[in-house]
Every structure is written in C-alpha cells, then in structure tokens.
C-alpha cells in the first residue's frame, strides 16, 4: 500500500542544513496498523507530513521515494497532491479541540471534504456526513451535523474528526497521537473505533504515538525512531517482548509494571535527545546509552531482516 524508501528531509537554515529525517524506509500493507514510536523531535510526525505532502516550508528539502499503491508521490504537483489528500490519504491530528474550524458546523466541514473530491450535491454530501457520524458512534447524528465544534466534548470532536478523515474511504489513514489529548476512558473508545474502522474499510493505518501502552493495544508492526532515524523495527511482540536496541529497552523500562513490586522510582533515560544541529558522528543514542563501546563511534546500519535494530551490540554479543 505505502512504501517509503530512504526518505531524507532537511531544512536550510542560517546555520547550514539541518537533517530532520535521515534515510527512513518503511512500508504498510492493507488493513495493517504500523505503530511509530519516538519522543518529540524524533522525526515521526514530519516523516508522515511528508507522506501527506504537507511540508510547506520553502526551505525544506525532501529526498527519497514515497509510493502509494505504486504511484510515486515525491515530485507530484501541489494540485495532484491535493487530489490525493483527504481522498487516498487522510490524517487525524493530535488535538481535537483545535482541529476543526470553529465557525462552521461539523456537518458542513465533513460535506466540504466530500465535495472537494467527488461530484456530489449538497444534500447527498450532508446525508453521507450523517452516515459517517453514525458510523463513529456519535449519538443522534442527524442533529449532530448541525453542531459547531465547540458544542461537542473532546471525545465527540475526535470522533467527528475521524468521521471526516474517513469520508472518502482513504486507503491510508495517518493518526498522529489521536488520543494524547483525551481522557483515558475516551482514549480506549477511540482506539476501539480506529481498530473497527481498519477492519471495515481495510485501510492501512500509520499510528504515531509516544505511548508504548497504545502500541501494545493497536499495532501489528512497530518502528521506533530516534533523532531522525529508525533504530528498531519488528512485529509488536518482537519489539515489546525482546527489544534489541537499548533505546527501545529504555522506553519499555520507563513504563511502570502492572504486577509485582513497583519500583521506588520509575526508570528514565538519562540526558536528552541530541540537538539536530549537533548530531553525534556515530550512533546518535550513544551519549545516553549505558552499553556504549568503541564501535558506537561509527554509524550503525539497520540490520537483521524482519526484526531489525540499528545497534552494534547484537553483532558483538
């Protein structure tokens, strides 16, 4: 469905080029959920903004290949990209409070997207909006389409945003931390909803999060990103149960255990992610890594087939 090969994104700045994403490759199949984990600034959001063609910064340089159903997206004109956005690829953003234009009803906003891509009348578009709202379990959808975003709760708003994203049956759905801003109970409902939609629409889903708990709930396969590169990828079980990269291990260690004795202090990763202006020459996690050794001064490649990690440790051990 989606194939990304050697994606590199950099920005021209006063202090020279800054590389935000460095050689990222991944693919997602139909009805598969790919979880993308990493902390802020790891390049997860910007990689997928590139897939959407939503990087408008004139100083951005995007290289590599992004193929959707075999069609190359890099190099498409704005007009061609617009035809794909919202129809083939849809995106759900983090904060449902600000994701919809405050001055239009949600029905109007959903109908607007449908009518941007299909030749369909106003009434028919609104009728579709009602069906979509029903599908995402918004109670009383016939009235709900006349509501303004500020009249809905956070969970309902995120449902409306999801309904809008699904309005043209996209082949690929990108969800950028869609539950981060919600209450825990509402989070679970939204996750259920996304899983159900994946089943019904057979869409591929890329799920961006920094929450390993959400990954355990949702993902089929996982890729872990750190400072613009993929450090580990594999199936959910491989990543959660036998992590190979020290960064993945550290992320998992920072979750409190459900059973057994609780640690006095939660483990955290010492230090902070390196500045993109000043990346270490070798492995970018090396300065924070408890197992670093001489070879870490070189750049490790992502190796190991299906379950791959960019680390020299496994080779040494």
């Amino acid at each position, binding site marked *: 469905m989606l194939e990304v090969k050697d994606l590199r994104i950099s920005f021209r700045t006063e202090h020279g080029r800054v590389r935000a994403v460095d050689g990222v490759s991944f693919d997602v199949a139909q009805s598969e959920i790919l979880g993308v984990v990493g902390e802020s600034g790891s390049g997860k959001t910007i990689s997928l903004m590139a897939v*959407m063609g*939503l990087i408008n910064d004139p100083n951005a340089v995007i290289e590599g290949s992004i193929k959707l159903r075999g069609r190359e997206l890099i190099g498409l004109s*704005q007009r061609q990209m*617009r*035809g*794909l*956005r*919202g*129809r083939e690829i*849809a*995106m759900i*953003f983090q*904060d449902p409070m*600000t*994701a*919809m*234009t*405050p*001055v239009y*009803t949600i029905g109007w906003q959903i109908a*607007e*997207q449908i009518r*941007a*891509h299909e030749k369909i009348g106003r009434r028919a578009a609104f009728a579709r909006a009602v069906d979509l709202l029903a599908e995402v379990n918004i109670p009383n959808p016939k009235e709900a389409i006349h509501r*303004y975003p*500020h*009249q809905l709760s956070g969970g309902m708003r995120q449902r409306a*945003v999801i309904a*809008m994203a699904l309005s043209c049956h996209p082949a690929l759905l990108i969800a950028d931390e869609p539950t981060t801003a919600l209450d825990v109970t509402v989070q679970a409902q939204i996750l259920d909803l996304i899983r159900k939609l994946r089943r019904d629409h057979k869409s591929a889903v890329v799920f961006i999060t920094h929450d390993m708990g959400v990954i355990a709930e949702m993902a089929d396969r996982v890729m872990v990103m750190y400072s613009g590169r993929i450090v580990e990828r594999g199936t959910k079980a491989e990543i959660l149960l036998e992590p190979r990269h020290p960064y993945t291990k550290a992320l998992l260690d920072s979750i409190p255990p459900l059973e057994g004795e609780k640690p006095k202090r939660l483990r955290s990763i010492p230090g902070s992610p390196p500045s993109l202006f000043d990346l270490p020459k070798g492995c970018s996690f090396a300065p924070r890594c408890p197992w670093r050794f001489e070879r870490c001064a070189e750049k490790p490649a992502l190796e190991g087939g299906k379950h791959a990690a960019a680390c020299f440790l496994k080779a040494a051990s």
Partner: protein
Amino acid sequence: MLLALIRRFGQMIFVMFGISILVFLIFFATPGADPASRIAGRNASPETIEAVRKSFGFDQPIWVQYYIMMKKLFITQDLTSFVNRGWKVIPAVIDTIPVTLSLVIGAAVLWVIFGMLFGILAAATRGSIIDKLLIAFGLVGCAMPVYWLGEVMNLFSQSRYHDTWLFSWVPPLGYKPLSEDPEGWFLTLIIPWITLAILYIGLYGRVLRANLIEAMQEDYIRTARAKGLSETRVLLRHALRTSLISFVTLFGLDFGALVGGAALLTEVVFGLQGVGKLTYDALQNLDLPVIMTTVIYASFFVVLANALVDVVYILLDPRVRSA
C-alpha cells in the same frame, strides 16, 4: 441567537440613557457656571438670560431640568439656539446627517473592499515583493493627513488640472442631495470618499494581513489542507472568517466616530456641511444647545455602531451565540 440580539439592543438603550444623563450633567450641572448665561451667549441682555432660565427650567429641580431638556431634544424638538437667534437646533442637525452619512458610508465601502483586498493579497503573498509594496503603500496612506491630502486633491482636481481630461468631470466643492441630483451627489463625493478612505485602507489592510497570517498557523488550517482543499479555499473560507473579528471591531469604532463628527477635517476641506462642520461652527461661537445636541447624537452613533458590531460578531462566530 434572537435572545442574544434582544439583550444586546436592550443594553444599547440602557447605555444611551446613561449617556444622556452624563452629557446633561456636564453641560448644565457643572458647578460654578450659570448655564442660562452660557446658553444665552456672550453679551446677552438680562432679559434674554431670564427667558433662557425660564424656558429651560433652571429655576426648578435638576430632574425637571433633565426632563425639559430631553423633551426639547426628542419629543417637541424645539430646542432653540440663542446665539443664532431663534435657530431651531434639531432640524439643523438633521439636515447635516445625510451629508455626513453620504461621506462616511461611501468612504467605508471603499475602505472595507480595498482594505480586505489589500489584507488578503498581502497575506497570500507574504514575504514577496507584492506584500512589501502593499505594506509600503499602506504606510504612506496612513501617514498622509486628511487635510493635506484633501487640499492636494483639490489643488489638482479643482484648479491645476481641472481643465484637462483627467479632472474636467469634477464638479465644484459642496454637497448635492442624493434625492435631487444623484449624479451630482456621486460626482462631488468621489474625491472626498477616496481621500477619507486612503487612511483606513492601509490601516485595515495591515490589521487583516496580521490576523490572517496568525490564523494560517492554526491547527484547523492544517486540517483544512489535509482535507485536500485548495490553498485559496483554505485562505478565504477557513482563515478569513476567523480573522475578520478584529477587522469588524475596528470598523465599528471608526465608523461610529466618523459619523459622530470625526470626519470634520474632510468636511471642512471639501466644503461639506456635515455634522463635524456643524459642531466645529458651534464650538467657534459657543452655541451650547447645538454642541450638546451633536455630542448626544455622536455618542448615540458610537453606541449604535458598537451594537451593530456585536450583531456581526454573532453572525461571524457561533461561539458568541450561546454566551
């Protein structure tokens, strides 16, 4: 929504009532001065002062004075100027209103249309040469005082180049009523409109540009782009509507003030007998009843304009409706 409208207009009436009391007190209950002799004017005979005292009820309690004053203003409308003997004030003010309204409404149409075009164009081409030129022109427009620009316009259109093809259509200064001579009304007002509007076009364009650029950073703009909408639609349907709020606020304040007499300089330069000119003349010979009437009229207009702005808010932004 209807309730919000009714409430807003109720507030408006209440504020107007308060203003009438305040203005009355300032003019007639200021300690240390006899209002009767002030109304009668300089060098008035004792008989005139006595007549004023009787006619305005200055020998009676203050609420009776207020009542008489309001009756003279709004009900019998026979408030008389003593400086200009026997001159009825209310008809005089009412006569000037169409002049000022013609001037200000025409200018407002120009500055709203061109201010919006300016703001949208500058925001859409942000950072480019077009944007920078627009900002520079806007700044020049804001910096030219109306009395200077008006006189320059007159110099060109009335004298220097009046006989060339460019300005031969310009009629002599003065106001022609719309009902009698629509074409003359339009032609005499074109240059005053442009003169008055130029200042505001620059100002409004810059405000709108700044608001649009801010709105374009919002999350919902990213969503709108992700929906696959065209950049024009994102700008005009999603960013513009939320950006218009401060534009409308500014418009209400300026429009109210201008109709209330702040267009004085333009009126004087172009020989238009408007409210501003009337107030100015009344101030020159301390014609108290006229000054008070125009002050009340002006403040009422500011209040009315603000109420209308709030109505436009309600239309623009659904979040205000329930509040």
